């Protein structure tokens, strides 16, 4: 049987990465698989992709997808700056950053904040399990109040809601999903690839080794029971000629910057992910109930991203020829004259 090729003629195999060294059953591996599917289905050229990460279990995972893409496993909590530099150097690249809840919410909160403010074109994924895996299970800043460690220690600090923070700070695509929800996660990832600007995707991704027990609010069982989807997300890329029929009023249609369409089938009255204040209210309400609102929480499809604001030349800065980047003799002479 012939292998299915994507729209740029590549096989699925090319989108795979190295063999994972994470624990069997780790939610992060499921996320890697969805990333592979999304990049394959959207027909993204792997050699144009950069994979970025900080430090932690999550940050190892870029080695396990898109083997043909360049990757940079940076220092703890500082992946946003490395990604920002790389995208300034070459705005034609597609950036995907993988972080964790500690890498983002603790050591990296400063860089996270400023990444969201800048609306850099990047897909920023938090593989969120509420604990530090590589250092053996300490709480992270997204651990919920009252959640219990295996050792019996109870978390008595409020969690940082990275989605609420991202919306507040100016991210233009904010979503939450669950590593166990294949359909929703894939649709959101594909939509993320169609978005221009910062995509902040918090994916609840249970740690099977340190945080999957009774009393934990980030266990598979707990997340499954408390997943509160805002809508049913369907994504139709611009290159697919599919029309979706829906009953008027039942579905919200969002046109992405590249012409792709998001169809958000409403599961409740009145939720509108383009309404910033409504989105914040909904996040707080869900959290108060001890649940997780998942799906597309907030989107602003048309805002200029960081690189557009810089009015950069079309070609990547990295490879501009010398004559474009070294002013001529007359320029230097003019400067010298002004100093005499």
């Amino acid at each position, binding site marked *: 049987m012939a292998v299915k090729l994507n729209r740029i003629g590549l096989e699925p195999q090319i989108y795979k990465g190295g063999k994972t060294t994470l624990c069997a059953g780790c939610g992060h591996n499921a996320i890697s698989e969805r990333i592979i599917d999304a990049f394959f289905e959207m027909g993204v050229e792997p050699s144009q992709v950069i994979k970025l990460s900080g430090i932690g279990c999550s940050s190892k995972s870029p080695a396990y997808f898109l083997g043909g893409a360049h990757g940079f496993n940076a220092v703890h909590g500082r992946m946003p700056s490395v990604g920002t530099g790389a995208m*300034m*150097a070459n705005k034609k690249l597609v950036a995907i950053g993988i972080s964790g809840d500690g890498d983002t919410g603790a050591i990296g909160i400063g860089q996270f904040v400023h990444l969201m403010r800048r609306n850099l074109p990047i897909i920023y994924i938090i593989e969120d399990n509420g604990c530090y895996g590589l250092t053996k299970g300490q709480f992270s800043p997204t651990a919920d109040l009252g959640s219990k460690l295996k050792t019996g220690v109870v978390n008595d600090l409020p969690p940082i809601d990275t989605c609420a923070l991202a919306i507040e700070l100016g991210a233009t695509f904010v979503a939450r999903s669950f590593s166990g929800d294949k359909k929703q996660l894939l649709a959101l990832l594909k939509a993320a690839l169609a978005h221009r600007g910062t995509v902040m995707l918090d994916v609840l991704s249970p740690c099977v080794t340190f945080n999957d027990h009774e009393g934990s609010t980030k266990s598979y069982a707990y997340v499954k029971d408390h997943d509160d989807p805002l809508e049913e997300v369907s994504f139709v890329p611009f290159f697919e000629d599919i029309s979706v029929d829906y009953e008027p009023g039942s579905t919200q249609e969002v046109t992405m910057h590249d012409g792709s369409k998001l169809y958000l089938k409403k599961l409740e009255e009145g939720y509108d992910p383009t309404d910033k204040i409504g989105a914040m209210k909904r996040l707080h309400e869900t959290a108060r109930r001890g649940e997780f609102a998942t799906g597309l929480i907030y989107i602003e499809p048309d805002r200029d991203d960081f690189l557009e604001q810089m009015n950069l030349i*079309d070609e990547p800065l*990295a490879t501009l020829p010398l004559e474009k980047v070294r002013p001529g003799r007359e320029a*230097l002479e003019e400067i010298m004259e002004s*100093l005499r």
Partner: protein
Amino acid sequence: MSPTDLAVQEQHTSGSQQRVVNDFSIQVATVNGSGSQTANLVLLRSILLMGVPVSGKNMFPSNIAGLPTWYTIRASKRGYIGRKKEVDFLVAMNPETAKEDVLTLEAGAAVVYDEPLKLNALRNDLIFYPVPFDKLVAPVCPDAKLRRLVRNMIYDGIMAKLLGIDLSLMEKALSKQLGRKAKAVTLNQGALKAGWDYAEANLTKQDPFEIQPMNETAGKILIEGNAAAAIGCMMAGVTVVAWYPITPSSSLCESLIGYMKKYRIDKETGKATFAIVQAEDEIASLGMVIGASWAGARSMTATAGPGISLMGEFAGLAYYAETPAVIFDVQRVGPSTGLPTRTAQGDVLSAAFLSHGDTKHILIIPSSVEECYTMAMDAFDLAERFQTPVFVMMDLDLGMNNWMSDGFKYPEKPIDRGKLLTADALKKLGEWGRYKDVDGDGIPYRTIPGDKMPAYFARGSGHNAKGQYSERPDDYVENMDRLTRKFETARTYVPKPIVDRVAGAKIGLIGFGTSHWAIGESRDQLREETDVKTSYLRLRAYPFTTELGEFIDAHDRLYVIEQNRDAQLLQLMKLEYSPERCAKLRSVLHYNGLPIDARSITDDVLAQEGYEVATKATPRVGAGMTGGE
């Protein structure tokens, strides 16, 4: 000694009126934020326009407005542009410091002062010129709000008359300084003239100091090192800049922004050929630089000591993952906040070994504004050739003061982007490994995202020659040894020292950076005053090149001259050199926050050589203030 002791020195010697032409220093004491910088730069430039070699040094507080500030201008017919310790001519505009400023002058000095301060009562061995600034400024500046700023220009007019500076040249300097602000030019010209007229009508020249026309400054420019470095970066083809404001480096990036907006907008499209971002901190600045360099851009940041500290972790990543980065360290004083507006060379060791584990970096050290310009270009070439951070070690004195220089030459060398893997090279190599030493020089070939060459996973964790994750002991050692090989190769690429060997000299002086100017003058003093002959090596880079060891071997005693407390360069030399060589090394250290001066070096060397050094009542070492947090 307390300042009052100085008031009862021997009677002044003003009877012997020998003229002192083109060889004295002027200190202007004002209040920070009073607009005195314009007046001081006009005075500086007008001396330059008289053809007289000149230098200016700003000693300012960490403050927006209100605290005392001093500006020193030195005219030197012999071309000395280092700091001169003694003040010959004081312009006392600041009531808060006026008394101390006057009490610490040497006998015979001249003082222009604001009349109500009644400074003439303090000493009888100085020459005093009282000037009623407030009375003079009112008629020439109807707008009372502007008077505080304009009154400074009056002392320029006074000084022009007293020193013999051509008023039309001073007006030219004023126009240059204020540019196209026609209204401001007219207003200030009025103030200049008012000062001149007052001096002509009311002051009798009693001091010996004069500026007479020379022909030593034709074609010279006046520029701050930070601006010079910025021009160098632009000509080097920098494309990505990330920075965080910190004194004394901010003006490097701010100048760069100005130049880039003017000269680096693509003519065809009107779009920028650069991206400059003010980051959230220095950590992010270096992170952005590393990300940009990894993705193939020529990228840089500029900072000072506290920023260097913050960059530690990322510096290690760049060293180990092997990404280029150009980091300007405009050094200032102290651990922690220290004296943020004063100068030092105190980051030598921390920059050389910045980060944890076994890490060492290339440093290049400019001494002049011209070298700020050329070494900025060298830095990018070295960073890309060696795929590693390169630190350009400037200091506040160089970066933020105006220096006289020849005009900069257009770069004739093409840029060196180092070993980027090409399709042809790949065919020749057969197999590519990101960290494989193909050429035996320790430098591997790299690829960049989007170049269609093989991809790799850059990481700060252990990796083998192919760039794969590895914790194997042999992989780690092989990689670290290759990095050492790479560093050794750098010895043959970095700027060589400038050596002046003097026949018969047993003493060698070793210095770097801005100490150069004081060292040159000190060597003249040593030769002329005591017949001590010295050779001189000006170091321009770390790792050291062979010239340094040879220079040590060729002399009996070596004085390593540094502007820090802990003899940091000497410590660095001790790590490399044999006990025989180290035994010859001595230190001359200067670390009070002021630029090093020739007399301090001369006295220190002579004392260590066993000479009797006149312990003359050194007035206060310089401008400074206490309190007022």
